[in-house]
C-alpha cells in the first residue's frame, strides 16, 4: 500500500517543479546523444517509409505512366475505381480471403492454444511444429501447396476426389484459403499462448474453488482476460489478410477469381504503368484498413 501512495506523490512532485527549472543538464545531454544515435534510423524511416507514403497520396491525384510527366487529374482515379469491375472484384477477392482464411485460422489457433497451454511432455515440440510454417516463406509454402493441390496431388488423393483446385473459379479461392489457414494458424497460436501464460494461475484456482467447471472458467475467466490479446490478433489478422500477395501469385497468378487487391495494385502499377491509379487503390486500402481497425477496436472495447 505504501508503494501505491508514494508513486503518485512522486509524480505530483515532478509536475510541481517550478517552470523554467527544466531537466538537469546531464539529462539533456544524454537525450541529445540519444537523438544523434537515433537520427540515422529516423532518416532511413523517413526516406523509405514516410516519404513514399506521402508520395503515394500525392500520386493518387495524378495520371502518371512513369515515362512522361505526371498530369493532375484530381479525384478522377478514385471515380474510375468505384466503377471498375476489376477493382471491385479484387476487393471482393481480398474480403473473401480475409474472412475465409483468418476466421478459421484465429479460431483454430485459440482452440489449439488452449489445448497446448498445459505442462506435458513434448508440448514444446508440438508448438514448434505449428510454428514451422510461419517461419517458412510464403513462396516456399505456396510451391509446396501447388504440389498438394494439383489434380493428382495429395489432397485429391486423400479425399479421393477429382477437384481442379487451382484451375476453377469455384475452387481456387478455397484452395488458397486452405493453404493460408495451414500457414497462419501457428502465428496466432504463439500470440494466444503468450496471452494465456500471462493469466494468473490463482484466478483459475479461485474460480475452481468456487465450483466453476472448466467451461465456466474458460468463459468467465480465461476469455475475458484474453480479450486484449484477441483484439491485437483480430486487427493483425485483417491487416495480414489484406496484405496477401504471394500465395495468389504463385498458386494461380491471380486467375480464377483470386486477384486480390495487392496483386491488382502490382499489375496496375508495373504491368500497365498506371502509377496514379495504383496509388489511388493504395490510398483507398489505407483508409479502409484504418476504418476497419478503428471499428474493431471500438467494438471490442465496448464489449469489454
Amino acid at each position: 500500500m505504501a508503494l501505491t501512495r508514494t508513486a503518485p506523490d512522486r509524480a505530483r512532485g515532478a509536475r510541481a517543479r517550478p517552470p523554467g527549472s527544466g531537466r538537469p543538464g546531464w539529462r539533456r545531454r544524454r537525450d541529445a546523444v540519444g537523438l544523434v544515435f537515433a537520427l540515422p534510423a529516423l532518416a532511413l524511416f523517413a526516406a523509405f517509409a514516410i516519404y513514399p507514403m506521402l508520395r503515394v497520396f500525392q500520386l493518387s491525384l495524378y495520371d502518371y505512366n512513369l515515362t512522361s510527366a505526371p498530369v493532375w487529374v484530381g479525384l478522377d482515379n478514385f471515380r474510375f475505381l468505384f466503377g471498375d469491375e476489376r477493382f471491385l472484384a479484387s476487393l471482393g477477392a481480398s474480403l473473401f480471403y480475409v474472412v475465409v482464411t483468418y476466421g478459421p485460422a484465429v479460431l483454430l489457433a485459440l482452440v489449439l492454444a488452449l489445448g497446448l497451454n498445459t505442462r506435458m511432455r513434448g508440448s514444446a515440440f508440438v508448438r514448434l511444429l505449428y510454428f514451422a510454417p510461419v517461419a517458412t516463406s510464403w513462396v516456399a509454402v505456396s510451391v509446396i501447396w501447388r504440389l498438394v493441390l494439383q489434380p493428382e496431388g495429395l489432397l485429391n488423393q486423400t479425399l479421393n476426389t477429382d477437384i481442379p483446385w487451382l484451375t476453377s473459379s469455384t475452387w481456387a479461392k478455397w484452395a488458397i484459403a486452405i493453404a493460408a489457414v495451414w500457414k497462419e494458424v501457428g502465428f496466432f497460436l504463439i500470440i494466444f499462448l503468450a496471452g494465456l501464460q500471462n493469466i494468473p494461475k490463482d484466478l483459475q484456482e479461485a474460480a475452481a474453488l468456487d465450483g466453476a467447471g472448466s467451461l465456466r472458467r474458460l468463459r468467465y475467466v480465461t476469455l475475458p482476460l484474453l480479450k486484449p490479446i484477441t483484439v491485437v490478433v483480430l486487427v493483425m489478422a485483417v491487416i495480414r489478410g489484406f496484405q496477401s500477395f504471394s500465395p495468389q501469385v504463385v498458386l494461380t497468378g491471380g486467375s480464377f477469381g483470386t486477384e486480390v487487391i495487392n496483386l491488382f495494385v502490382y499489375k496496375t502499377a508495373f504491368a500497365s504503368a498506371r502509377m496514379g491509379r495504383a496509388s489511388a487503390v493504395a490510398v483507398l486500402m489505407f483508409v479502409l484498413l484504418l476504418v476497419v481497425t478503428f471499428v474493431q477496436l471500438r467494438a471490442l472495447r465496448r464489449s469489454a
Partner: protein
Amino acid sequence: MSVRARARAVLIPAAAVLAVAAACGSDGGSTGGGDTIELTYWTHTHPPMTELNEQLIAEYEEANPNVDITYETIPNNDFGTKMLTSLSNGSGPDIINMDDSALRGEYIPKELLAPIDPAAFGVESAEELEALYVDGTLDGAKGDDGTLYGVPSEFNATAFAINTQHFADAGLDPASPPETWDDVSEYGQQLVAAGHEGFNFVYLHSGWYTQQLQTLLNETGGSILNEDGTGSALTEPESVEALQIWHDLIREDQVGNADTASREATSPFEDFASGRRSMTMIYPWAVEQIAQDNPDTFENLAVVPLPQVDPANPSGRWYGYYFAVNKASEQQEEAWKFIEYMTSQHERWLTDVNFVQPLQGWEQSEAAANIPFLDVWSQAYQQGKFDEVGPHWSEVQDAIKAAVERSVFDGQPPAESLEEASESVDQSVSS
C-alpha cells in the same frame, strides 16, 4: 565515465570507421583505367538461347577486351513487367531482346528505345539495313512513323507438331496430318482413346493466351480491336468463332485436359516433349528445346502445316524478338556494335538454337539446309502477320486470358465470356 566522455568514446571511433569506409568506397567504384565499356544485356529465359548468348558474349569480349558485358536472364513470367519498369525509370539494361508486341505496344510509343544506328551495321540508312531482311520482317520493331528500333534475334512463324509414334499407336497415318481444326478434334479423340493427350493449347501467362487466340482469330477473320483500335471487336461473330474452336476442342471434344496442363513457363512445350501430348502448335525455336529435353520425342517429331479453318485460304501468325537499345543508355554506339556482332552470327543462331534471323536468302543458306522441316517453315513464313497491339495492351491481354479461362476451364459459353472481356477491353483502350 561522464555522459560526454561516453559519447566521445562511441562517436569518435564511429566517425573514424565511416571515414575509412567512405575512402574505401570511393576507390572501389573505379572500373580500372576508365577505358572499360560496361554493357548490360537482358533476355527472357530459354535455356538453349541462354547458352548461345553466353558463348557469343565470351567471344565478343575476347575480341574486344575493353568491353565487359553483364548478361542477365529474367524469369519469363516477370520479364515484361521487370523490363518495362526498369526502362521507364531509367535503370534498365543497355541492350534488350524483347517481343514485337511489347515493343510496338509499350516501348516504342513510350519512347523508351533508341532508333537504330545504321553505321554500326555498315550501312548508310535504316532503309539500306531493311533491304537486307525479308520484306516486312522488321515491321515488328517499327513505330507508327516508320522509325526502326531493332533487328530480329528470332523471327517466328506458327506450325503444328505431331508425335508420329502416337499417331501409329492410334492407327493414324503421320503422312496425313490434320488439315483443319475439325481434323484435330477427330484425330485428337482417337489419340485420347489410344492413351495419349490428343491436343492442347499452352496455358502460361497472358501473352501466351493472347497469341494462341490471335492465331485462331487470324484464321476466322476476327480481331481483338476494331479497325481504328478504339474499342473491342471480341463480340464479333468471327472473334467468337475463334474462342469457340478452343472451347469445343477442350471442353466438348475433350482432346486434352486443361487442368493437368504443365504451367512451366521456361519449358512451354513440356507436355509434348515429355511424350504425354500428341499434337501442339509450335514455333521454330521450340524444336531445339524438344530435342534437348527429350531426344526420344524429338525422334518421333514431325512438323506439319498449321491446321486451318479454311485450308483454301491459309493464314498464320508471325512474331519476333528484336535486339534493341535503351534510349537512356550512355553506351548506345557500343550497344549497337554488339548487336551487329550478334546478328552477324545468324547461321549459328539457326544451327544451334533454330532461331531464324530473316535475312534475304536465309532459306538458301548452308545452315538452313540442315534445319528439319524447312519446307514447312518456309511455307509458314509466307502466310503470317504480326499480332494486333493497342494502348494498355497488358490489360487487354489480361482480359483475354480471363475470357479463355472462364470459357475453357469454367465452361462459360464463349460468346458470354467474350462479352465480359469486351467491356474490359473497351475500358482499357479508352482510359
